């Protein structure tokens, strides 16, 4: 039970974590992130890296859709832009990986501003559909600008090299992917402690009033688009190093829907929500795989059921959360926290 928090300075009250238990939990979490690669097997390490990449991408989409209220169904296309940027830089210039990753973010951000331009005139569904259109047009570019993108066959990417060492195992890649993701999530959390984050939320809640209160809508909507695309580009760059090949089919519309579903399930407009959603949605299909393995002695041809069952469960999760738990997993966590705050004096 927490009785109260006494802060002596305004700075202390403005800090990211305001209670002792929060700090303790975060320390435990950080320690387990460090310990994880030493305890789990290669398959789970692979999944963890994939989760981290999806967390980075979902956090970006959350900034745009959850916090600024601009719905995008084209987020995967920006991941693709990032992946192609890394692939092209690696194969043509051979620049260091951190330069490539940042370049991936920046190229995606520049395109994001372009795609965000319609957001000045339209919002809501129309914007969502415009972003679908943009992602189809980008897909066309990936196939047809074959001088840069390698056309339909795509580009193979050499392994990530750091101080002359090639990182080819999941274990070694983990030490690049996880820190980058952690930094990106921390950056996003910081963003919403400042005027820029407040401006985004204001635009989501009442855009016209926000303008009268001194927030230039054009600049901030485009800024949100560019930040979200930067995150997607970085995540796509990590993805490229992880899978080592990128083709036009690497990031289909379904990936965009997946990311939007992740922030819906996790909780839109909270940093924690983006993380929880990405973790949950990436791991849920794996749980199904265990389920199918478990029933396979009883049901003939159970393996063939896996893919359609995943599709059904994916849709059912979106529908179920929207109808029954629209604030997502983050709200469930909050409820649990509220319960324990007064525990054991109130049940």
């Amino acid at each position, binding site marked *: 039970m927490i009785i109260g928090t006494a802060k002596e300075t305004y*700075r202390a009250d403005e800090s990211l974590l305001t209670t002792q238990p929060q700090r303790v939990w975060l320390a435990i979490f950080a320690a387990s992130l460090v310990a994880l690669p030493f305890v789990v097997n290669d398959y789970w390490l692979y999944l963890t890296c994939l989760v981290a990449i999806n967390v980075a991408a979902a956090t970006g989409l959350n900034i745009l859709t959850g916090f600024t209220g601009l719905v995008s169904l084209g987020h995967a296309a920006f991941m693709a832009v990032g992946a192609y940027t890394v692939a092209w830089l690696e194969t043509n210039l051979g620049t260091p990986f951190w330069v490539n990753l940042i370049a991936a973010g920046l190229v995606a951000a520049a395109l994001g501003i372009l795609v965000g331009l319609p957001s000045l005139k339209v919002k809501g569904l129309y914007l969502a559909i415009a972003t679908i259109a943009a992602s189809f047009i980008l897909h066309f570019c990936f196939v047809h600008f074959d001088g840069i993108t390698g056309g339909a066959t795509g580009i193979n990417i050499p392994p990530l090299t750091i101080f002359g060492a090639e990182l080819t195992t999941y274990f070694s890649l983990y030490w690049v992917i996880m820190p980058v993701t952690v930094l990106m999530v921390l950056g996003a959390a910081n963003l919403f402690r400042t005027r820029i984050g407040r401006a985004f939320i204001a635009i989501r809640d009442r855009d016209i009033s926000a303008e*009268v209160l001194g*927030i230039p809508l054009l600049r901030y909507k485009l800024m949100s688009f560019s930040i979200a695309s930067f995150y997607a580009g970085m995540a796509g760059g990590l993805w490229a190093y992880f899978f080592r090949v990128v083709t036009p089919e690497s990031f289909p519309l379904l990936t965009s829907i997946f990311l939007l579903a992740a922030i819906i399930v996790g909780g839109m407009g909270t940093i924690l929500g983006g993380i929880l959603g990405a973790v949950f949605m990436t791991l849920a299909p794996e749980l199904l795989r265990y389920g199918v393995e478990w029933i396979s002695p009883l049901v003939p041809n159970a393996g063939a059921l896996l893919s359609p069952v995943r599709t059904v469960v994916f849709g059912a999760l979106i529908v179920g959360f929207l109808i029954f738990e629209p604030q997502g997993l983050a709200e469930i966590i909050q409820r649990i926290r509220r319960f324990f705050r007064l525990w054991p004096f109130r049940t």
Partner: protein
Amino acid sequence: MANDMNGADLTPAELTVEDVTLSFGGIKALQSVSFTAKAGQITALIGPNGAGKTSVFNCISGFYRPSSGRVLLDGQDVTGLRPPKRAVLGMARSFQNIALFRGMTVLDNIKLGRHGHMKTNLLQAFVYAGRAAREEEELRREVEERIIDFLEIDHIRNMPVSVLSYGLQKRVELARALAMRPRILLLDEPVAGMNREETEDMARFILDVKEEWGISILMVEHDMGLVMDISDHVSVLNFGKVIAQGLPAEVQADPHVAEAYLGSGDPAALMKRLAAERAA
């Protein structure tokens, strides 16, 4: 002039609406409306429903662009400026139907008002070091010590605005407007829908803002009792035209005003109704 960083020395601004006409298609919502809100005074804009008061406000804050005429802030023509520019120049406004941001706490809503005066850029925001941390701390201190204390809303500062009563929401809106470092405050029906007690609180706050903060105030209000009690100057609008202006007492005695409100040009009847309203 207003000092940007630590400016307690806000000078009140004078706002002039000059010959403003606003038409939607063929309908003229405003016809050459002119009036001045003098520096350091409370000016009230009154008139029957549909007279065009909120349209005037929308022209002043830049949401509508007048078809002709000018809006001047301390003599500077702001007619062509976008709303955020006007906000930075010192125009702060509250809204008729509360426009708080439901997804934020009271504190964040108030902080948002300062947006245009802050300088944190994207990179600083991501690392939350240097200017970002310093600015946020300064803002927090000022909001706590000057605004939250002054408006007596310290007990609700960490609540989400959606759970507050109507009267408190209006007060948070005023707090947010004050955080904008205004030199003139535009209040659109600050006491609409409030009970007697809440109205009296708000009247006290408005007077204090004028006296202690030295801010000019322009307000649209239906509550005639409040208007007559606290304003220094009253302009009356009817059918998009200014039909009378002057001291509250003069306006009350004007037969045009009585006609606009009651349909008959008898100031005595208007006085009687005001007295009845006040007693209620």
